[in-house]
């Protein structure tokens, strides 16, 4: 399995503060990857490093096997839509298409033109007068029409209404089907990711909590409800991700590839949102725990 993104000990520091630290991550090719995590987890920093907008302060990163943003060739292979989808307010839609043609040798003018028509955008309209959804679509058109091998989308749907969000993600998926593009899509809207993605990476405080295919993840995670019982009693191949208690019973989120046969437990499947939340909670708790135990 070849990787579209390989980060090893990647870090980015602003002054004394690390926005991303010790991030080690492999994202396989040919997937639509959802990157989720709480605010400040380093998602945007990671994505901006991967497209060459930021320079890493530590560690190494390879995107499609090359150093991000260093050569025209590398830049051409990666399409990027930044957070809040920037466009030139004074440029018309047609100007943006020209902009794409001028700055990308692999520009697919027919696709771009067709997509703008399908979206019903007026070529003469200034981008500054477009709605947020239309602007996001325009930005996506630019990123896709340069025919990248990897499309990186940094929370492009955060500011969109539910309808526009759905249309946008549908379009992304169409592109994937048509051109076989790999996609990395960051968001904190898990429900949307579930619709569009087939691979998930949960990032908390720069650290990968879990990464894997969404179907496998859903199949290997369960919610167990049962009486209070010592955690050690669970078989060794069941990894407890999260737990909560009431007076009489205990609820666990576990990961296991084996069927759970113990009749004490009531076994339920998890939806993606619960799964992500369990990992985020765990990541935050791990983070709060002191790194070194103090000997008394």
């Amino acid at each position, binding site marked *: 399995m070849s990787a579209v993104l390989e980060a090893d000990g990647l870090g980015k520091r602003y002054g004394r503060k690390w926005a991303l630290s010790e991030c080690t991550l492999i994202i396989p090719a040919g997937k639509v990857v959802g990157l989720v995590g709480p605010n400040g987890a380093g998602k945007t920093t990671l994505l901006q490093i991967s497209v*060459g907008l930021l320079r890493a302060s530590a560690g190494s990163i390879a995107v499609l096997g090359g150093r*991000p943003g260093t050569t*025209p*060739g590398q*830049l051409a292979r990666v399409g990027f839509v*930044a957070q809040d989808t920037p466009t030139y307010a004074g440029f018309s839609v047609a100007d943006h298409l020209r*902009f794409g043609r001028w700055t990308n040798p692999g520009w697919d003018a027919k696709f771009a033109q067709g997509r703008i028509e399908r979206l019903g955008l007026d070529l003469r309209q200034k981008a500054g007068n477009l709605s947020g959804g239309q602007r996001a679509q325009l*930005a996506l058109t630019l990123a896709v029409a340069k025919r990248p091998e990897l499309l990186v989308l940094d929370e492009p749907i955060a500011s969109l209404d539910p309808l526009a969000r759905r249309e946008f993600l549908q379009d992304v998926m169409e592109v994937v089907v048509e051109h076989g593009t790999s996609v990395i899509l960051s968001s904190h809207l898990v429900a949307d990711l579930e619709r569009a993605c087939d691979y998930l990476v949960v990032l908390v405080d720069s650290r990968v909590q879990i990464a894997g295919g969404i179907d496998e993840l859903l199949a290997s995670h369960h919610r167990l409800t049962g009486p209070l019982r010592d955690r050690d009693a669970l078989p060794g191949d069941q990894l407890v991700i999260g737990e909560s208690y009431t007076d009489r019973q205990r609820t666990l989120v576990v990961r296991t590839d084996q069927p759970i046969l113990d009749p004490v437990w009531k076994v339920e499947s998890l939806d993606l949102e619960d799964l992500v939340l369990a990992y985020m909670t765990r990541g935050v708790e791990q983070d709060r725990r002191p790194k070194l135990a103090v000997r008394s």
Partner: protein
Amino acid sequence: MIRLALRQFRTEAIVGLGLLVALAVVLAVTGPHLVSVSDAFKSTCRAAHDCATTNPVLNSDKALQSALPFIVAIVPALVGLFFGAPLIARELETGTFRLVWTQSVTRKRWLAAKLGLVGIVAMAIGGLLTWMANWWASPLDAVNQDRFGVANFSLHGIAPIGYAAFAFALGVTAGVLLRRTLPAMAVTGAGFAAARVAVTYWVRPNLASPVRESLPLSAGSGPGFLYGGSQGTMNFNAYIQSGVPTPGVGQVVLTAPQVSVPNGWVYSTTAVDKAGHAPTSHYLFQACPVLKQFSKPQASAAQLQACITRLTSTFHTLVAYQPPSRFWSFQWAEMGIFLAGALALCGLTYWWLRRQYA
């Protein structure tokens, strides 16, 4: 990439070009009038053998005459403010740098195209404007004979090309460092003014050591020189402090006659002895006791003249000046200084962009 740079620069370019053309039209319409006024005066004054009176050309188109130096001086600053400061700051401000830097053009090429295109336009504006203004003012310059003068020098020749390039680069750099257009504009205006003042008053006088020439203190005219002011008579400026002079209290300075070098730059004219020293007040009071009674009626002009005659045997005039032949080397040097500054700023911009954003 050039096409994109052109497209983004379109509005500013149109406005700039429009203003330049408007000024060109005004100058082209009024310029020939100045020439005819000057020529008419010259032919009549030669016929009447009286060319010492003021050429009336100095009084024609007064408003434009006083406005033009101001325009020529201010335009490079405007270039820096409106072409330079927003060039990259606006992209950083609106986030579009994330759009343009992720297309298939390296940041180096992107920067080179923008700086190259707009920088060349900025320099062309600086050069064209100066050329137009100099063409218009040539009848005036012919009368004033002062293009090496501290103020005039900056408005002539090729130095303004350097100013425009520098102001533009300063605007770009300020915009990149501050990431905001408006503060960058303020810094550009202040920084450019400071650079101009510093070069004019501290660097330019030291670019080449002045020619030093000795003239007799009483001489009529040395080779290539005109005596201004009192036409060969001596001026004593007696500064007698504390009102009524009493021996030992007042001070007196021997000043040399003003020497003017047409189209040259006179640094100083001083009255000195053979060793190069100016006379002290003490010496002057001893040599010319009449100075002590300077404010009294009995200090007659004849007594003073006799005293001057005595002094001329000991003292002479020392003139330090830049001859007019050096005008163009000074112009090249000043343009070079500002172009070098502009290049250094462009380098700083590139380095900063690489450092900050991969």
